């Protein structure tokens, strides 16, 4: 299974749609402080089903929708899609799998797999056995080393269960 592409629009500082192509190997994301690099990491975490707004550095749910700037008005929706090339790892019969998450300022949120609506549970289930599940260590946020090492022994168990 390969990650092919990320599209984000209205999510945090992405007032204009951004598209990133991914390839096998190592992709580095660089840029000045405050330019939006960690917002990309947050977008990936969010579309994979992250529900804790604090992990996404917000205080309330709508903090992830573009709040406006000195020249732009706030937006009403945040949308992120991840495009996968499915070799059978994902339990679906499609070659290309697109996972989309959308949040409206009204609080309504929706998930889609290949354009058809689904529930958060379906997303969690789809990724459960891929190593990308909720307890996995595959996304390490900025400055999180201390919280990983300072976690209690029982809390670390979830990493192992996820892997087993």
């Amino acid at each position: 299974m390969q990650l092919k592409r990320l599209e984000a629009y209205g999510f945090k500082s992405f007032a204009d749609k951004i598209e990133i192509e991914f390839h096998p190997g190592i992709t580095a994301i660089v840029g000045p402080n405050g330019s939006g690099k960690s917002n990309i990491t947050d977008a990936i975490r969010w579309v994979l089903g992250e529900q804790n707004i604090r992990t996404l550095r917000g205080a309330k749910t709508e903090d992830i929708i573009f709040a406006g700037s000195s020249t732009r008005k706030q937006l009403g929706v945040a949308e992120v899609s991840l495009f996968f090339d499915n070799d059978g790892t994902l339990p679906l019969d499609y070659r290309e799998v697109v996972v989309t998450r959308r949040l409206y300022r009204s609080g309504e949120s929706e998930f889609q797999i290949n354009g058809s609506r689904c529930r958060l549970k379906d997303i969690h289930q789809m990724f459960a056995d891929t190593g990308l599940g909720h307890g996995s260590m595959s996304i390490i946020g900025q400055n999180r080393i201390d919280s990983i090492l300072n976690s209690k022994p029982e809390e670390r168990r979830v990493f192992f269960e996820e892997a087993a």
Partner: protein
Amino acid sequence: MTKEFKKAFADIQAYFQESFAALFGGGNAELSLSGESVLEAGIEISVQPPDKKRQNLSVLSGGERTLTVIALLFAFLRYRPSPFSVFDEIDAPLDDANIARFGKFLKEYAKHTQFIVVTHRRGTMEQADYLYGVTMEDAGVSRLVSVRLDTAGGE
């Protein structure tokens, strides 16, 4: 469940020791189960950099703590490669020599896992196959630009 968990634990423990020794140039790294039953046991981490006494994790330096977590991450990836992994400035506390070691690990494991690394360090940028720049020239709005290594800056 218990049998599978034990097998996974034993393998990850062995890979953790190997990654740790490769990153630190020696030393010991151990995982152990705390508590009575395997079903509820917690995981204890105990490491010993080369030539040093075995000490509490809190005594390790900032860079040593980061390398310990990196060793654990690669142990998991070795046990079960995940399709992709995202590291957000995990290399910030590392000195140049350890940046180079981290880069070597990325290169090696990139055969089975796609890595997406956010970084300000040139040593890590140099290991990348693809480089994306993010800027905010337009007030408060992020934009993607294509970047070549020689103009990426970074130290």
